[in-house]
């Protein structure tokens, strides 16, 4: 183990600790970290924004390849910026509506295909009792149906319907359980990532061994 000599690593550790200090209570170090993030990410964003989009996708095409038509969307884009000028903010709507409308229009049939049709198709499975898959398929069939019923609001949960809804809630709970377990895992992984950073990059321990 040898301590890192890289000033940046030290900086990283300093901020890691400043953020962790929030566990004790909200404090200036945490606030500093919070604002540094904002600063860095904005600066970072602006540079990439220019290097990777504005320059190659607008400046070059328009001023070198002469696709002047692109000036129109550019103007629309600038109209969007007018949002911050209360008097002119309504102008931004033209750009926004153009964007949002198209997006919405594209979305409907595509979601229909990807998250409805394909999903329905995948739920049509051959049921049978004499093979593991067959039985699993039965479980899936019941599961999907009953959960759909649980979220069906036009009929009171009574009788058979109510029974189905009850089964549905159990499926939901198992599903949420899975999410729960996985989420716990995720949260822990995040901290482990930081621990690894401190142990390896900062303290320079060789853990792989």
């Amino acid at each position, binding site marked *: 183990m040898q301590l890192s000599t890289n000033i940046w690593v030290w900086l990283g550790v300093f901020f890691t600790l400043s*953020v962790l200090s929030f566990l004790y209570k909200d404090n200036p170090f945490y606030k500093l970290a919070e604002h540094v993030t904002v600063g860095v990410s904005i600066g970072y964003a602006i540079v990439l924004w220019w290097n990777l989009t504005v320059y190659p996708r607008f400046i070059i095409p328009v001023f070198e390849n002469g696709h002047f038509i692109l000036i129109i969307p550019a103007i629309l884009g600038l109209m969007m910026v007018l949002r911050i000028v209360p008097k002119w903010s309504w102008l931004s709507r033209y750009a926004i509506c153009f964007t949002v*409308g198209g997006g919405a229009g594209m979305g409907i049939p595509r979601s229909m295909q990807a998250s409805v049709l394909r*999903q329905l198709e995948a739920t049509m499975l051959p049921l049978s009792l004499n093979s593991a898959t067959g039985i699993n398929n039965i479980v899936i069939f019941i599961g999907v149906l009953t959960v759909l019923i649980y979220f069906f609001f036009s009929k009171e949960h009574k009788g058979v319907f109510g029974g189905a809804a009850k089964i549905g809630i159990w499926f939901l709970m198992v599903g949420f359980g899975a999410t729960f377990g996985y989420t716990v895992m995720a949260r822990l992984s995040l901290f482990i990532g930081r621990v690894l950073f401190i142990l390896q990059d900062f303290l320079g321990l060789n853990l792989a061994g």
Partner: protein
Amino acid sequence: MLWKKQIPLAITFITGLVFGIQYFVPHRTSENLFNAYVDWEIVIGIFGGILAYISFYRAHTMRIRKKAPAWQYSLVAIGISLLMIFFGFIQGTETGTFFSNMYFYVLVSIEGTMFSLLAFYISSAAYRAFRARSAQATALLIAAIIVMLGRIPLGEQLSFWKLIWSNAPSFTDIANWILNIPNMAAKRAMNLGIGLGIMMLSLKIVLGIERSYMGSGD
């Protein structure tokens, strides 16, 4: 009124309609229209980006001018962002530059750690708050525990019953089954609902029923 509401709504409706239909039309013209639209959108968005940056600087300069509580932080934020821009353009963005170091060691450290706080909150919540309040909550917790055991290497070792009956399913197997069968079923049903919700929202937007995206004001 007309200029501020009707026409924008009309634009939404028309673009929505056109590109809804476009999906079903493989014809060249429709292809070209689509691609042109996408190109335009990208340029619009690129310039829309300015909005975010301006509002950032506005917000913080405001705080500094107003000497709002803890305004010094805004000073830091602005100062650092300017530094990033300066070095990003002067020195480039490759590994080892100020720009990339700032990003990789500072930003990543901070944001990474911020969310890793949750590791602690979740552990104390696990201890003090996650309660099997009802049969269903119990089922949830049990499923969760199985998944948690199934997703770690140790899970195999902890499946003690395998000592007696060696080809019984281990925690890992059970977890995988839960994830692939009941969980899958439940999530599919929910996704169907969510998908509906999304389409519903899009439709309302196209039909001009949902307008909140247009921002406040008349």
